[in-house]
């Protein structure tokens, strides 16, 4: 018998939430990468690049960038936590480490946002 549904009761714990955030942030970053390379490519064409830089001065773009930086930092810190579990046998207080990884990521995002405005 299988139990279906992503919100099944047996998944309601920090380890699964951390894995879900890690997977979704990874997918989001992978989806963003082509856009990132497109912008880098545009840097060679001064006119369109300047236009793009103007476009990024809008507040909603800055907030999106901060979210993106947060996503990257959360994924990075979550990845370090996973490596610590798998290679160094980090065993104690997993929910604390998960919370620290999330706090680090969101903190980096907030710092980015403060600098952006």
């Amino acid at each position, binding site marked *: 018998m299988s139990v279906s549904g992503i919100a099944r009761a047996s998944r*309601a714990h920090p380890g*699964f939430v951390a894995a879900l955030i890690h997977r979704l942030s990874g997918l989001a970053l992978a989806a963003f990468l082509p856009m990132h390379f497109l912008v880098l490519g545009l840097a060679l064409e001064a006119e369109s690049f300047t236009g793009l830089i103007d476009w990024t001065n809008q507040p909603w773009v800055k907030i999106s960038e901060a979210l993106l930086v947060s996503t990257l930092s959360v994924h990075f810190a979550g990845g370090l936590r996973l490596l610590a579990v*798998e*290679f160094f046998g980090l065993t104690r207080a997993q929910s604390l480490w998960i919370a620290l990884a999330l706090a680090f990521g969101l903190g980096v995002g907030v710092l980015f946002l403060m600098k952006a405005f």
Partner: protein
Amino acid sequence: MSPPERVLKVDIWRGGESGRTQRFEVPERENQTVLDVVTYIQRHLDAALAYRFACRVGVCGSCAMTVNGRPRWTCRTHVSRVVRRGKLSLAPLANLPVIRDLVTDMTPFFEKWQAARGRFVPGDGPRDEMAAVSPGEKHRIAASDAIECINCGVCHAACDLVSWREDYLGPAALNRAWAAWNDVRDGDRNGILRAVVSGGGCHNCHTHQSCAEHCPVSLNPTFSIAGLKRETLKAKLRGELK
């Protein structure tokens, strides 16, 4: 005049792989385990209800079921801890074939224990020589952390990877393999690593840690599997695994 008796509403899975839930009403007691509730139903309301138990005290590992959506050992789960608005929902363990009602077929579970080579293989040494293993030795401590498994199948039912990949050995079998690998008296420890590195082996684990979250005796199969990942990697680098 005594107060009116309070009643638990219990929905239980009836049938095999396909079936339906059936509602029973059971008197609520101050001290009552989920297994007590199932036993009450079988003795007083429907003698045909199939379920499995033996020791009733958390040793044998045979009474595990899905209680309100998560796997638990029912003999040590008090109703008061899990009841929601007077209701309990009981189903057989997930990730295993259902025989009938609350009884699953544990055959695939134990076949995976065998596939992970979680049993002792003696070495070539003389039989009258007692192996000296210090209690403080690194491998002995690691084995102690993994050894108290009661084979209940709760971690197997909780594991997402088991539900995603049929040949995945699963947390219980791999935890056992880790305990066995840490037995320095074993005559073929690399044989264990070979068994757990194959297709459905330890490297499938995504470290969701549901096994550790739900294990009724507080073992941590995720970390046992992480240990196997490290040791298989080391053995591979040393050229001991093909």
